[in-house]
């Protein structure tokens, strides 16, 4: 191996395989146009080609693939949600993630490290007991544990009672994992490209031609494309793209900020989350501490950073892990979260007969990438949402049939 590496480094020959095919001209017509080249859009393209034999598909992205929320989340996957529908859906996504490296032939660095959601109040203990029971009933590993067990799993945590919010217990989710998020976009894009899907980066959608309740063509910055069907998968910009298609959404776009510290020697195995303290932390394979908190306090379409976020996050983080006072922040960024009123996503059909939507992914979208992509591919191919995602339909808000997933959100919003 070292010899091969040396020869490759010193030699002039470079492999001629590319992750993506060379950029192509837009074709005048595609059977399916997918707006948004993030994880969800690319996964849907892959499953459309792989499972449904639909390969005349274009994925359009105004920037580059995986450059939005796919590359801005904190890479955590888990399935310990609160509603039956949510747990079933996220458990299916975790099941797909576990074998995805093999399927896509790319190292996604799937790392099962355990996930602890800390409780600091009686109310959160109660919600966690409820979550644990729902989870176990549906076959998801999830257990309410006390301080002794927390100390065994994560001795680094400050379990002292002499703090503002002592740790009373935790929801333990041993199968909680982290996944290298960029590689998910690259893996799906490469696999979809090999099956014939066209991926057009730097191609922004600026309008839709609509006739008789259906989209007949997509207007882009590179010209007009005729389309059979359209899938919108644009996360924080869902309201803007759907406005071009003539319908409104129950969504607010709010920034979510995150940061990483300078790299330090590995000391932290599990993912630690505190809903009451609005913070979460895990240590990456590079040794950086990946940290995030609650969404920003008001809606915005800007990925600017604020000092308020860092002050608020660190004040609480230092209570959990006081020795982090010595560690410096290295990098900070934000993504645009499309927040729904019930903290559950929107997947399925829209008021336009050949237009489909996957949105409302707020702060919980990355973990859903494979299941959302697979289910949306089926929804587009069959013109009918599969049973797994039927409860997440857009019309649930008008029918007053919401899902109520707020109790399972990682951190307060």
């Amino acid at each position, binding site marked *: 191996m070292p010899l091969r590496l040396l020869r490759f480094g010193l030699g002039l020959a470079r492999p001629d395989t590319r992750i993506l095919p060379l950029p192509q001209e837009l074709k005048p017509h595609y059977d399916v146009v997918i707006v948004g080249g993030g994880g969800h859009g690319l996964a849907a393209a892959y499953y459309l080609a792989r499972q449904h034999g639909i390969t005349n598909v274009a994925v359009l992205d105004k920037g580059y693939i995986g450059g939005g929320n796919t590359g801005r989340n904190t890479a955590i996957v888990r399935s310990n949600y609160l509603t039956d529908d949510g747990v079933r859906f996220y458990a299916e996504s975790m099941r797909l993630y576990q074998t995805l490296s093999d399927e896509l032939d790319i190292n996604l660095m799937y790392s099962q490290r355990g996930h602890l959601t800390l409780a600091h109040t009686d109310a959160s203990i109660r919600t966690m007991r409820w979550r644990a029971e729902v989870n176990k009933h549906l076959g998801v590993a999830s257990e309410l544990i006390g301080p002794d067990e927390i100390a065994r799993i994560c001795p680094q945590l400050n379990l002292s009672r002499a703090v503002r919010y002592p740790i009373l217990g935790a929801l333990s989710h041993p199968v909680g994992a982290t996944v290298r998020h960029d590689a998910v976009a690259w893996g799906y894009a490469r696999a979809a490209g090999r099956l014939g899907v066209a991926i057009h980066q730097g191609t922004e959608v600026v309008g839709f031609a609509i006739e008789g309740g259906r989209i007949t063509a997509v207007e882009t910055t590179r010209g007009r494309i005729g389309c059979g069907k359209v899938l919108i998968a644009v996360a924080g910009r869902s309201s803007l793209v759907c406005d071009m298609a003539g319908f409104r959404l129950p969504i607010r*776009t709010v920034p979510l900020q995150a940061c990483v510290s300078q790299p330090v020697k590995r000391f932290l195995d599990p993912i630690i989350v505190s809903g009451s303290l609005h913070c979460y932390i895990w240590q990456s394979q590079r040794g950086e501490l990946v940290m995030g908190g609650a969404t920003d306090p008001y*809606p*915005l379409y800007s990925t600017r950073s604020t000092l308020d976020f860092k002050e608020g996050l660190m004040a609480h983080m230092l209570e959990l892990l006081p020795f982090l006072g010595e560690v410096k922040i290295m990098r900070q960024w934000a993504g645009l979260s499309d927040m729904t009123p019930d903290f559950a996503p929107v997947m399925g059909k829209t008021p336009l007969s050949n237009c489909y939507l996957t949105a409302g992914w707020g702060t919980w979208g990355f973990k859903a990438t494979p299941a959302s992509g697979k289910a949306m591919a089926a929804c587009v191919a069959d013109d009918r949402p599969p049973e797994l995602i039927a409860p997440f339909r857009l019309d649930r808000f008008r029918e007053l049939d919401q899902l109520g997933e707020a109790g399972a959100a990682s951190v307060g919003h």
Partner: protein
Amino acid sequence: MKIMPCPLNGPRNIQEFICRGEVRIPPAADASAEAWAEYLFYRENKAGIVREWWCHLPTTFWFIAERDTRTDEIIRTYTFDALDESGSGR
């Protein structure tokens, strides 16, 4: 620290305020459940200048702020009366 110019309390740290969303006309009391669902859950969520209800929490003073959601700039703030006078609708 970001500053919000409050019509009652003057410029204050934005952490003292809470944003309560777009200024909109509520449906009539006897409107259909669908109209109420639309009012409660659906949003314009515009990228551009929005008009919103804000509240200064320590004084529970409610007012209206116009912000640009693309640039995070606060353009102006005024009381509910001024909104009526401007005739710009609720």
